[in-house]
């Protein structure tokens, strides 16, 4: 269980750095600010420590340096936050929180409790996670945690195609770091990491939408995600799809909040998490260049560190391992011209989308209910177009990979498409909530009688 201390330490480090450097102090309401700081802090802290451990520990063989740098930065960031803490503001007006916000907040807390209970049943039944967890992500973490020359086995071609030694290593490297620092291979570390990404995703969406569109929509967006059956099923699997979904959503939230460097950091971390993240990085840079031109350089700068590690890994370290695209090039023209593949893939997309629910429930139902009541806000067309373009190009990219692949198409669709949709679902929810109208309210301002105030003080 000491491994959990190192998971918490990484999250704390990320929270302190985001609090110090992200410039989120202007975000209102305050709970949305803290939600963003904690959500971004968890994801950035895990990404940052993963990169640091991979670079210092796995490549240079200097684990003690990685540990030392982490602790030093933690101490410095903690001191900086303490030194620069702002005095508590004195509000001139006391704003009563609408009842609807309380109802939505209680709903979200209930949904999170139910989600945690559902995830916990899986922790108990399958502590090692599902197939890909022990066959890919945690297996490679065990190599990386072993240190020295043994760490290089995490990308050895001997592992074979089923272990995907060419996949990027954010998740494996973070789990390896926590195992190595705690000198144990506790199953609690990958389980807690996946859960932390789930909570970070919820916090980022809640805080981001609350800052952009008000607290009611922020809480509802988080609630819609926290009650998505297909998403919840991925949390205890310990796969890289949950971290990827979190990085996708975080990048878009910060792009919409006009924090392009932070958006870039998230997109870079996505590229260091899984191959789909490389596609996302390309798509977000292209869409940002088209719709938010001034932000593109800052986004690129934010993405550079993690993306550079991903490029070094792909181009040099793991170049002996053939990726999905490179193995699909022979005969690609023939597959592209095969109309039947398009039909099979489209049908699978439809089937898996309808299968994201449980029984009669589908996660799109709450969105439809809100769209009917609130309708869409034309003034948010630009943000909706940004999110929509990202989702559209991502899905188009995924669709193209399925058409091109030389793997058995039916098997690949069955084994991966549900997870691919889970990666994209939070972005779809963001696109929907960004475009919704804010619930219109009548504002009533009542002066508080000074005599009554004085009487209360006297008591």
């Amino acid at each position, binding site marked *: 269980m000491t491994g959990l201390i190192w998971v918490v330490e990484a999250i704390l480090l990320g929270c302190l750095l985001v609090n110090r450097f992200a410039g989120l102090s202007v975000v209102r309401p305050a709970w949305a600010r803290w939600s963003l700081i904690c959500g971004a802090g968890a994801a950035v802290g895990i990404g940052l420590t993963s990169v640091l451990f991979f670079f210092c520990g796995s490549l240079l063989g200097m684990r003690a340096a990685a540990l030392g740098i982490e602790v030093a930065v933690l101490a410095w960031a903690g001191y900086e936050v303490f030194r620069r803490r702002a005095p508590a503001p004195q509000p001139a007006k006391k704003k009563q929180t609408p009842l609807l916000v309380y109802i939505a907040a209680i709903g979200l807390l209930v949904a999170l409790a139910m989600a945690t209970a559902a995830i916990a*049943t899986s922790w108990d*039944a399958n502590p090692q996670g599902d197939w890909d967890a022990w*066959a890919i992500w945690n297996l490679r973490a065990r*190599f990386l945690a072993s240190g020295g020359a*043994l760490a290089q086995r995490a990308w050895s071609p001997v592992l074979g195609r089923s272990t995907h030694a060419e996949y990027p290593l954010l998740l494996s490297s973070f789990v390896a770091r926590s195992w190595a620092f705690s000198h144990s291979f506790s199953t609690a570390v990958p389980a807690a990491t996946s859960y932390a990404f789930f909570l970070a995703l919820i916090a980022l969406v809640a805080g981001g939408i609350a800052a952009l569109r008000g607290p009611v929509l922020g809480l509802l967006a988080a609630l819609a995600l926290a*009650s998505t059956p297909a998403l919840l099923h991925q949390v205890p699997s310990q796969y890289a799809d949950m971290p990827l979904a979190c990085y996708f959503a975080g990048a878009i939230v910060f792009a919409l909040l006009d924090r392009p460097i932070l958006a870039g950091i998230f997109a870079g971390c996505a590229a260091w998490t899984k191959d789909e993240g490389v596609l996302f990085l390309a798509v977000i840079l292209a869409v940002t260049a088209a719709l938010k031109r001034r932000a593109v350089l800052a986004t690129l700068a934010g993405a550079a560190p993690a993306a550079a590690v991903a490029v070094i890994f792909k181009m040099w370290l793991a170049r002996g391992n053939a990726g999905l695209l490179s193995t699909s090039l022979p005969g690609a023209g023939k597959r592209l011209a095969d109309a039947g593949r398009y039909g099979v893939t489209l049908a699978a997309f439809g089937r898996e989308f309808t299968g994201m629910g449980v029984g009669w429930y589908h996660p799109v139902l709450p969105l439809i209910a809100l769209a009917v*009541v609130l309708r869409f806000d034309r003034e948010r067309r630009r943000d909706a177009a940004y999110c929509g373009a990202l989702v559209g190009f991502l899905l188009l990219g995924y669709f193209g990979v399925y058409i091109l692949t030389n793997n058995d198409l039916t098997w690949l669709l069955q084994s991966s498409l549900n997870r691919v949709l889970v990666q994209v679902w939070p972005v779809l929810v963001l696109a929907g909530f960004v475009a919704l109208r804010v619930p*219109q309210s009548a504002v009533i301002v009542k*002066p508080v009688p000074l005599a009554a105030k004085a009487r209360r003080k006297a008591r």
Partner: protein
Amino acid sequence: MPKQRISEHYPKAVIAGVVIAILLCLWGSFASYGSESDLQQQYRDPYMVSAQFTRLGGALSAIPEGAGIGYITDAPPGSGLEAGMFLSAQYVLAPRLLKRGAVAEWVLGNFSHPADFAAVGRSQGLLLQQDFGEGVVLFRKAQ
């Protein structure tokens, strides 16, 4: 400046719509919990990965960490059983690196059924070094 209290009141249609959306989400949460609990009860560690730590415990302590070892099995090649047995063994034995076939000085035998393991080894030019039980044996290449 006198203190002011601001309260917001939403139209009834908005309140109704938002409450319906919240109830729908909570329906999804309860449905997810039921579905996930049933699924996990039905499929408790279906590939018995946790059990492999005990089953392969003897081999784990006998084979040095840096070793690259061969791997033979009686599971049908290309089957789900073979892939599950191989990958779970690789996971448990990491950082030791398994290579399918009798391709190294030391070879792990991972069998799903009882057999004359010494004879199986001899047929592939291997000498039985240690039988750890439960179908786990360690071979060494015959000189």
